[in-house]
């Protein structure tokens, strides 16, 4: 008889159960600790990224969000409403916020240009973005898109400046009807409301087109009221 082994040796059932229990507890503590202790910093980073994306869609410098943007929430009828969360907090759960019928708007205080957040599905995972409209509330001033897991070189191209540069100057209304932007495979060739789709990224492009249309639809009433105001102001 040699030395008595701990729990009957490395390959006994008791040792295996003991080993896996200890391992799981240690790993769980490590993961929980890192996650909790870093949460605040991560959230701050994400919030800054969202602020920068909003001003970037307006073609402004990073970090200028707090000076230029006035944010509020509208309902489907286009009226400004009070909500429990701030418009920025809504961006963290845009799908849930849309389900409640609450739609955040980010307005450039100086110029009346507005930015709308978008959310949708690409091929593999979520895609999202921001569309900025000129003060006429029809022409796109700029657009920013990003994705969680589209294929690099294919669907992920929607996040490149080259792809996004196609959007400024496009209009989203045709004879008072909201049409959004068509993301056309094989080349838009200057057709109205259209941009070139990503080569090899057909599903992502379709997702993008649906995202733009579906999300902007929620702001249709808001946009029409504002457009009417713009027209009367000009008439005076």
């Amino acid at each position, binding site marked *: 008889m040699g030395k008595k082994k701990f729990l009957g040796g490395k390959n006994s059932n008791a040792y295996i159960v003991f080993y896996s229990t200890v391992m*799981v507890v240690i790993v769980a503590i*490590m*993961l929980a600790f890192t*996650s909790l202790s*870093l949460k605040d910093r*991560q959230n701050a980073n994400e919030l800054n*990224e969202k602020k920068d994306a909003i001003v970037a869609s307006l073609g402004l410098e990073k970090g200028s969000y707090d000076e230029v943007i006035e944010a509020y929430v509208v309902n489907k009828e286009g009226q400004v409403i009070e909500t429990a969360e701030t418009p920025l907090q809504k961006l963290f759960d845009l799908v849930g916020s849309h389900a409640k019928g609450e739609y955040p708007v980010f307005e450039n205080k100086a110029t009346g240009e507005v930015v709308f957040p978008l959310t949708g599905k690409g091929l593999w995972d979520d895609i999202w973005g921001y569309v900025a409209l000129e003060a006429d509330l029809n022409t796109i001033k700029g657009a920013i898109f990003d994705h*969680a897991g589209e294929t690099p*070189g*294919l669907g992920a191209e929607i996040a490149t400046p080259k792809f996004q540069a196609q959007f400024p100057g496009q209009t989203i209304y045709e004879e008072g009807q909201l049409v959004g932007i068509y993301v056309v495979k094989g080349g838009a060739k200057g057709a109205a409301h259209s941009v070139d789709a990503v080569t090899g990224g057909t599903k992502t492009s379709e997702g993008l087109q649906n995202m733009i249309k579906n999300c902007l639809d929620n702001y249709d009433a808001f946009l029409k009221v504002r457009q009417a105001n713009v027209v009367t102001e000009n008439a005076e």
Partner: protein
Amino acid sequence: MKNKTFQSLTNPLAKNNPVLVQILGICSALAVTTQLKPALVMGLSVTAVCAFSNLVLSLLRNGIPDRIRIIVQLVVIAALVTIVNDVLKAYVYDVSKQLSVYVGLIITNCIIMGRVEAFALSNKPLPSLLDGIGNGIGYGAVLVIIGFVRELFGNGSLFGYQIIPECFYEAGYVNNGLMLFPPAALIIVGVIIWVHRTANKDLQEK
């Protein structure tokens, strides 16, 4: 002895390359090589994860029960990647955004588990660490070659910068669309293996 330790670093670079000889990690070699930059990022990440998981599991090797060793390997690798990703997200947000797409691919990369299983569990920590680094670099090198060819001929660019001049396109040159699809990566891997085996006659099957 010293020489043998050193070999665990240099062997996987050519003679025992994980992609070319062991034919491991092919799946991610297809997924992230449409462009050079993600290929490079993926190569570096896998090198880091492979090195540290080899080190950690080599240190733990005498206590791990044989019957659940695969589960233990997976837990260590997944925990390591998750923690590193969390830290990056808090302190270098831009880098973490680049990597987030690959986190799942890194955890499930067969090279990492393959090396832990084949090497780290039966070797001392230092050679295991070097073996991890060597295999990571060997894998990354192949990825970079594939990424180079695919981005150059598929997009006409490298690292996102246009390389093939505009006048080529005006003269009728067209980017090769096949390069952007997975089969192109397989073809390129095949060609590299061919060249590699021609150069290393002892690897050829009889």
